């Protein structure tokens, strides 16, 4: 670019974002033992930083636009950011867009990965454990996709999206956090095909005070599993999430026009799906906030066996737990429940047959980054193989010897899992793959005799994708 033009462009753009240069993007490789921060420091706008498996005791700050942090995943090996309980945050990113895939992130005091004011946040295949207040935390951002992440033992929300617009949260496995997934003061989010279990609460769609973006509208929550979210709250008792009673599957608080459909919500002790207002004591802090939950549609969901042992708070306010509960505030809400479901709290009309209005932007407009194994997946030597193709496990039933390994290979163009199951329900068990993309594999070694049944979470409805077995003799 000639200098004169640079000056002109500079003049035109001074004070606003300057577009990253158009030169060909570079790739920087970080080998185990080297510093990722040093690579970030050198990286130009648009660069890809590839990181080899290894442990990196670093806190990364990424202000350069267009950076991709790509962890090289070799079988079970991946680069891990480890704060050792001493560093504050795994990653803080401000440059737009920001992409990160293929990392482990653990033991930070503040947070796992946060993106602050970023347009284009693409996070995939991150394994975040015990990383502080939040696992992944895009805030005041837009065009966000969070897919294929596993997030555990987080003190507030495992996956949080706040004050943002247009987000896709899909195929994540989120467990043993206080909140599994929290969509807060955010418009047009899609939360689908996630597995949330054994959190204090599974999926939250909230509107909270003290934020610049006052609304949370049009979130769609569908085809998720929100199961056994009965872990006693271990959050900060001063925070709103830290005060949640345990045993909640899905909760819509203060948000509007949410659609909750086709989710499996089971064994949450207090309430399966809850629709309520933001409590007055919080709402009155922000007079510009509309604290009621309006026009939310709780359409058909598989709500089963929730509310069997409600937290005292529910016992007190609703007299009982249930598969569904509404606090009786807000306008235009509806619910369609299966016949046997227990409806606690105030009654609500059934939802109209007609499909709800689509979100403002179609999901296809949000580019996702598929997690990709840089090296071809290696099937362990001596392993038996189950292929997943054409919406079937092949073979459906396999018999092996004690101590043998089985490897599943996804050959379909869609996402599958290998998840311990009982009929059409996922259950805790030894088989717990993450969400497998085409070409990805999952292996498990069976050390005990028995009959191991499993299913594919996204495709429980398909005959060839449930009640498959491994028999160990």
């Amino acid at each position: 670019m000639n200098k004169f033009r640079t000056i002109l462009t500079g003049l035109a753009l001074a004070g606003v974002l300057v577009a990253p240069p158009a030169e060909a993007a570079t790739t920087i490789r970080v080998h185990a033992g080297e510093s990722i921060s040093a690579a970030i420091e050198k990286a130009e706008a648009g660069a890809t930083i590839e990181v080899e498996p290894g442990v990196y005791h670093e806190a990364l700050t990424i202000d350069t636009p267009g950076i991709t942090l790509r962890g090289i995943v070799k079988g079970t090996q991946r680069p891990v950011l480890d704060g050792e309980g001493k560093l504050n945050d795994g990653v803080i990113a401000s440059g737009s867009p920001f992409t990160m895939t293929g990392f482990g992130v653990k033991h930070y005091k503040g947070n796992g990965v946060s993106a602050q004011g970023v347009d284009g946040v693409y996070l995939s295949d991150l394994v975040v454990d015990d990383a502080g207040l939040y696992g992944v935390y895009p805030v005041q951002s837009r065009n966000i996709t969070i897919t294929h992440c596993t997030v555990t033992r987080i003190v507030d929300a495992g996956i949080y999206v706040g004050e943002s617009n247009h987000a896709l949260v899909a195929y994540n496995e989120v467990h043993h956090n206080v909140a599994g997934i929290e969509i807060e003061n955010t418009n047009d989010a899609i939360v689908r095909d996630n597995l949330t279990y054994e959190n204090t609460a599974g999926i939250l769609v909230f509107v909270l005070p003290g934020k610049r973006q006052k609304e949370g509208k049009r979130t769609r929550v569908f085809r998720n599993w929100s199961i056994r979210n009965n872990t006693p709250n271990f959050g900060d008792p001063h925070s709103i999430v830290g005060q949640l009673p345990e045993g909640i599957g899905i909760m819509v608080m203060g948000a509007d026009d949410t659609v909750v459909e086709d989710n499996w919500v089971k064994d949450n002790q207090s309430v399966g799906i809850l629709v309520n207002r933001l409590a007055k004591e919080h709402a009155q802090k922000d007079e510009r906030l509309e604290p009621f939950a309006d026009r939310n549609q709780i359409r058909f969901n598989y709500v089963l066996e929730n509310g069997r042992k409600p937290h005292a708070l529910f016992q007190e306010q609703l007299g009982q737990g249930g598969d569904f509960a509404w606090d009786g505030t807000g306008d235009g809400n509806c619910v369609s429940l299966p016949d046997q479901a227990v409806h606690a709290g105030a009654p609500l009309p059934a939802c109209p047959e007609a499909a709800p209005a689509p979100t403002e932007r179609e999901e296809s407009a949000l580019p996702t980054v598929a997690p990709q194994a840089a090296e071809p997946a290696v099937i362990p030597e001596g392993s038996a193989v189950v292929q997943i193709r054409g919406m079937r496990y092949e073979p459906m039933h396999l018999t092996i010897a004690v101590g043998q390994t089985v490897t599943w290979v996804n050959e379909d163009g869609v996402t599958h899992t290998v998840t311990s199951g009982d009929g059409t329900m996922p259950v805790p068990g030894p088989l717990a793959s993450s969400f497998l993309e085409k070409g990805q594999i999952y292996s498990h070694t069976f050390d005990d005799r028995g009959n191991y049944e499993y299913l594919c979470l996204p495709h429980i409805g398909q005959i060839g994708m449930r009640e498959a077995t491994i028999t160990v003799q």
Partner: protein
Amino acid sequence: MHLSRLLALALAAAACLAPATGLDRPFPPVRGEAPTPERVELGRLLFFDPVLSGDRSLSCAHCHRPELAFSDGRKTALGAGGAQLARNAPTLYNAAFKESLFWDRRAGSLEEQALGPLLASDEMAADPAVVVARLAAIPEYARRFEAAFASEAEPLSFGNVVRAIASFERTLVSQDSRYDRFARGDRSALDASERRGLTLFRSLNTRCFECHQLPTFEAPLAMGVGVPSSDRGIGGAHGRPGQDGLFAIPTLRNVAVTAPYMHDGSLATLDEVVAFYRKGGGRPLGVEPGRIHEHVRPFDIRDDEARDLIAFLHALTDESARPETPAAVPSGLPVLRERRFASSEETRP
């Protein structure tokens, strides 16, 4: 922004050819009517001229001193006759971007704000009719109002006094600190400690960034951090239940120059401020938990990290728009004359 500043910026950008970072966020537009050079100059003179106060002793600049980034260095301001006011005088830099003014957010524009100190009996105690009469009797003011509000039927009015002062205040922008240069891509603008401090500021451990938001380092929100005081803040000004103890989030631009801190000036240094937040704000001080926002909670950082954070706060200083203090004002009254009060130990101006 001045054209010269714009040019300098463009040249700097061309010189290092560095693309902006993700921190380079556009400022909100300056609110209210666009200033003209005549009104700004008139406003500057009025800002420093004690003629506006009832007893001709007190100007805006007494409490908003240019060399202290328009704060006054006191815990709480000294009003008419040496009366101790209830609150700390904030900086005026970047007030032009704010949605509301005062610690309790009670004014919606700079014009509305200026009426506060002008009319308050314990501050400037101005009588609008008297002020207009005094100014009309001073030929230079009459001429300057005539020029600044030429198209108006009544150029010299109390309303136009306020408009001129507000025009002047709209030129007090601060957006070229070393932090801003770093944000625009000059990596050498911050040293290693300041950069660590910036990262800490954006950490979910400290959560500073969630309230003191980029790029103004304030936000149009009512928040409580738990400074113990009997001041009801926003709850008192607006009579809204549940908002007692909440205050406007102050800007941190030029914060290194504006000690002491908080609405009551109760924290003397930035060290004290950071120590306060580290322990969870007012949580250990017996302040009712409902008055403290959930983002304020004890956090664990090392002492060297606390120093980094403070170093970063120092990098938010930019006083390049500081106006000249006029050697004389049209009234002929002394500019920034030291005020002495029999009743008070404080004799500084």
